[in-house]
């Protein structure tokens, strides 16, 4: 970590070359030319991100296992889970939409949670996970495609639309999604990619024989 303050950083949005300075916890550095956020120093970044991620992983399971909500019409009851909805749409012939929902609402968040755990858990224990650059890259690629918060809003909009015609019974997964949205936002806010690259790099050099 000795050379951290001396390192240069080029703004990813305007390529302005700047010197990386040590930030106080909770602060962020922004580019003086274009205003982009260059990097942050989130408090206890690794610990907090790991905690939020593990909690989110558990809630994520709940959000996928339990029904989101059910409707009742004259004794006829219909309930759906997220995966049930994906399957149902597949059967109705809307395969591309079904796949899109499956990838953005289930696969992407799952990959995100697994990658963060895979990277941070060994780091917390003082080890460097094998092929970490690959997982950092996967994480960077998958991040824009995880849309749990959009799904949450979609669930709420559907809920309002349904209450016009049906009695709607909210399910366990509805609450799980609400909590998951908050946990993922918290994990994203405390995740510090730049710091993790730095730490991995330092550890890797320690481990490598000369």
């Amino acid at each position, binding site marked *: 970590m000795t*050379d951290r303050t001396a*390192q*240069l*950083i*080029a703004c*990813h*949005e*305007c*390529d*302005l*070359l700047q*010197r990386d300075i040590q930030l106080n916890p909770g602060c962020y550095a922004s580019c003086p*030319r*274009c*205003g*982009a956020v260059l990097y942050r120093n989130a408090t206890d970044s690794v610990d907090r991100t790991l905690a939020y991620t593990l909690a989110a992983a558990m809630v994520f399971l709940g959000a996928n296992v339990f029904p989101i*909500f059910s*409707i009742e*019409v*004259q004794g006829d009851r*219909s*309930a*759906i889970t997220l995966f*049930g*909805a*994906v399957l*149902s*749409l597949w059967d*109705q012939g*809307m395969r*591309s*939409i*079904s796949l*899109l*929902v499956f990838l953005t*609402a289930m696969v992407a968040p799952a990959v995100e949670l697994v990658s963060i755990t895979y990277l941070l858990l060994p780091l917390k224990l003082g080890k460097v996970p094998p092929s970490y*650059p690959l997982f*950092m*890259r996967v994480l960077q690629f998958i991040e*824009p*495609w995880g*849309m749990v918060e*959009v*799904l949450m*809003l*979609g*669930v709420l*909009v*559907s809920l*309002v*639309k*349904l209450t*016009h*015609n*049906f009695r709607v019974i909210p399910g366990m997964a509805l609450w799980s999604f609400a909590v998951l949205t908050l946990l993922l936002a918290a994990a994203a806010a405390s995740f510090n*990619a730049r710091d993790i*690259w730095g730490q991995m*790099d330092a550890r*890797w050099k320690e481990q*490598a024989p000369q």
Partner: protein
Amino acid sequence: MGADGREVERAGPAVTAGAPIAAARGLCSCHVCQLVSRRTGNGRVAHCPRCGARLHFRRPGSVQRCWALVIASYILYIPANALIMMETGSLITYRKDTIVSGVVHLWKTGSWMIAVIVFIASVAIPLLKLFSLTLLLISVQRRSTWNPRQRTRLYRLVEAVGRWSMLDIYVVTLLAALVQLGSMATVKAGPAAVAFGAVVVLTMFATMEFEPRLIWDPLQKEEFHD
């Protein structure tokens, strides 16, 4: 990828004088790990010494690919709005709604808040994305020096709000899966959902493909490629 033989510029000259651009000094910022390193071996493929990703001063072919994705989105935007998004049937009524008529119906039936949310996500955001990307692409191609800070902010806005247009896709999916009660009530996703989903995905790829550093390059004398 290796710790040995890596060349990293440390503690450069004061960065306040003029506007030191990484590419102008032969320095390249890795697009994966952001490590700034000197590009060695002129003309050859260079890799980041830390993470092994390919190094580029500027993402090659960014403008062309972004144009292709934007034009494809414009084309798909037509069926996305002209075709049926959702069919709703019950014992008494049967409705076929496009995106816009769905919003109007929500407004008329009193759910004005939901109508506003769906309007923003399904109509305003896709149009904002398409027009903004078009504006950015044209300004970059003309090497415009007009208000780069504002244009960068516009790009950041497009990047941040883009995902929210998936809203309608999720709503249609949930309703179509849940409301399958035979003659009592059914909801079906229409062909517009496919086109609209494609618009959302393509505009997201277009946003990722766009290189915001190109907005700032015309302020420099040099031209940077690859």
